């Protein structure tokens, strides 16, 4: 997967095993002063964490494994960058004048989303097993009992926050970091206290398919995913405030960003495998949608309200559209372009794959079986009658 993160001073593109850091100065990009980091070395040298039920001689290695990027994040103050890679490792970099790796650590399950808490003290990782865990930004932290969210002893670092039988798809925080909002493959959005996440304050339900992406704006939780509609929920109760029209007849919403425009909420969204970016203003009700077209399906986007620019990442590279309608392609290193093109999308279908215990089939089987039983009974009675 190719990932895009933008802060005031940096544009970061993550693809295959490489991280590209491009310095940004206002509207302009200093493409000459960029930095490339390959994470392969860290991935192969970082020691494994032994699971509690694993045999000692069962030593694993990441040698030769093809690395893909899973998810990435920039802290609110723009000082930290984190990325999770397919060999189940999270890396944290500090983004001062020079870029330095602060930490790298292993996580037990494949990460599906990472984000920094608003305080910038912890990295929050959601995984494909449905768990959300809190990790230290400057050092490893552990829970007192060293138990994971399933109540099992673990050798991995981190403090478990929430767990469920599902797949975690996004994690977001309110402005002051008192609430953690999580989205999963089972159409659910959970609003928990943070860090006391054992108290669930509300569920924001109503999505007809999985929830892939979240954004918070004032007293709203905004969400999108498999049902192709933008949902707005009340932050405290989780109740639905508004649901948009379908943005597409089948393409799911892949990413959301909220921007304040003249004091009003504006929701930007991209669709899976689609080159159009949609913007819908919301003021009591959803307004007419507006669209920005890119030249290839978007892998990621970022809307900068300050510079009035929209960045879009696709296989043609990085392009910038200004709010006034101008657009141009940014000149980027050929290595970056190659990595973006080589990056593989994870082969995950978030839609449900229902094959188990089909109720209709069961009812048919049941009807057939009872008909058989009745028929046998009838025959037996007939033969009894004829004997008599």
């Amino acid at each position, binding site marked *: 997967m190719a990932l895009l993160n933008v802060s005031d001073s940096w544009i970061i593109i993550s693809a295959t095993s490489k991280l590209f850091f491009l310095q940004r100065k206002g509207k302009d990009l200093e493409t000459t002063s960029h930095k490339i980091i390959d994470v392969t070395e860290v991935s192969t040298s970082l020691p494994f964490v032994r699971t509690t039920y694993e045999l000692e001689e069962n030593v694993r290695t990441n040698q030769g494994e093809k690395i893909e990027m899973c998810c990435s994040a920039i802290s609110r103050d723009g000082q930290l960058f984190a990325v999770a890679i397919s060999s189940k490792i999270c890396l944290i970099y500090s983004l001062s004048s020079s870029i330095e790796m602060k930490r790298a650590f292993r996580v037990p399950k494949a990460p599906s989303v990472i984000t920094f808490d608003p305080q910038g003290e912890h990295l929050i990782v959601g995984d494909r097993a449905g768990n959300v865990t809190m990790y230290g930004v400057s050092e490893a932290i552990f829970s007192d009992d060293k138990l994971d969210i399933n*109540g099992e002893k673990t050798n991995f670092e981190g403090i478990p926050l929430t767990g469920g039988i599902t797949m975690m798809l996004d994690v977001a925080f309110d402005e002051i970091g008192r609430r953690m909002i999580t989205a999963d493959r089972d159409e659910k959005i959970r609003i928990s206290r943070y860090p006391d996440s054992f108290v*669930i304050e509300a569920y924001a339900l109503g999505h007809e398919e999985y929830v892939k992406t979240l954004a918070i704006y004032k007293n709203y939780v905004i969400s999108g995913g498999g049902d192709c509609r933008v949902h707005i929920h009340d932050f405290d109760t989780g109740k639905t405030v508004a649901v948009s029209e379908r943005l597409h007849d089948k393409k799911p919403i892949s990413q959301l960003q909220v921007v304040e425009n003249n004091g009003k909420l504006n929701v930007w969204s991209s669709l899976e495998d689609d080159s159009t970016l949609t913007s819908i203003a919301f003021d009591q009700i959803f307004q007419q949608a507006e669209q920005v077209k890119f030249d290839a399906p978007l892998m990621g986007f970022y809307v900068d309200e300050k510079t009035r620019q929209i960045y879009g990442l696709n296989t043609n590279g990085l392009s910038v559209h200004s709010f006034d309608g101008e657009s141009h392609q940014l000149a980027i290193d050929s290595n970056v372009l190659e990595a973006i093109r080589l990056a593989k999308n994870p082969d995950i279908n978030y839609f449900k794959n229902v094959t188990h215990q089909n109720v209709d089939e069961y009812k048919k089987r049941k009807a057939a079986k009872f008909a058989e039983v009745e028929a046998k009974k009838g025959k037996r009675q007939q033969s009894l009658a004829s004997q008599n």
Partner: protein
Amino acid sequence: MKENETNNQAMDEEKLEAAVMTKKLPQKKFYRQRAHSNPHSDHDIEYPLTPDRMDWTTLYGDYANGRTVEFADVGCGYGGLLMQLSPRFPETLMIGLELRVKVSDFVTEKIEALRQKATTSGDTGAGFKNVACLRSNAMKYMPNYFGKGQLTKIFFLYPDPHFKNRKHKWRIVTPGMLAEYAYVLRPGGLIYTMTDVQDLHEWMVAHLSSHPLFERLTKEEEDADPVVPLLFESTEEGQKVTRNHGSKFPAVFRRKENPVEKN
């Protein structure tokens, strides 16, 4: 001989009539099922998008009007506990949640038969109109059915012990799942657990005790609870354990109030 035959015939007709009048109790031999079903799979479960959209009258008829479900028997099996609770709490709606299609169908058929029997026998209580069974996955969809603090009792009787370490995440009581149960359970509400596996009992007690939102009932409180004796013999599993002279380990926990948030 001739007279006998007429008698038999008369009896058969009577039986037939009775069978037509009241639905027959389902026979367990037609509803045998493997001991568990994988809660992690994508089952084709129909569940409401939100609790508001759940039409409980499809399960309880008019009896659902003006009442909300307050007891949930998670993994209710063949529904033994629900049948015992029904006449004791006639004003309370209670639901059995069972993942196995065949078993939940058995319970539904049984409830239907008991309701009809109650009607014909002139039952003046709830007449089993307060019980129902849903085929669902409680580990995934509790918040789809129940609102915040809606339930007053949740039962976990003889849950799958999942002995292997690797399968502990499948256990019904884990720190992660307890947050969800605490959400649907009203402060003061109770969680009842019962198992014949000591290891699982200790696991459940350890995790419920260390969870900030639960506290164990004292021995006196437990003894005073009229529901506790039902945990022993009401279910098929419980009777099986008795037949095999196994031990039984009950435990009851109260949902505490949420801690006050620091500003």
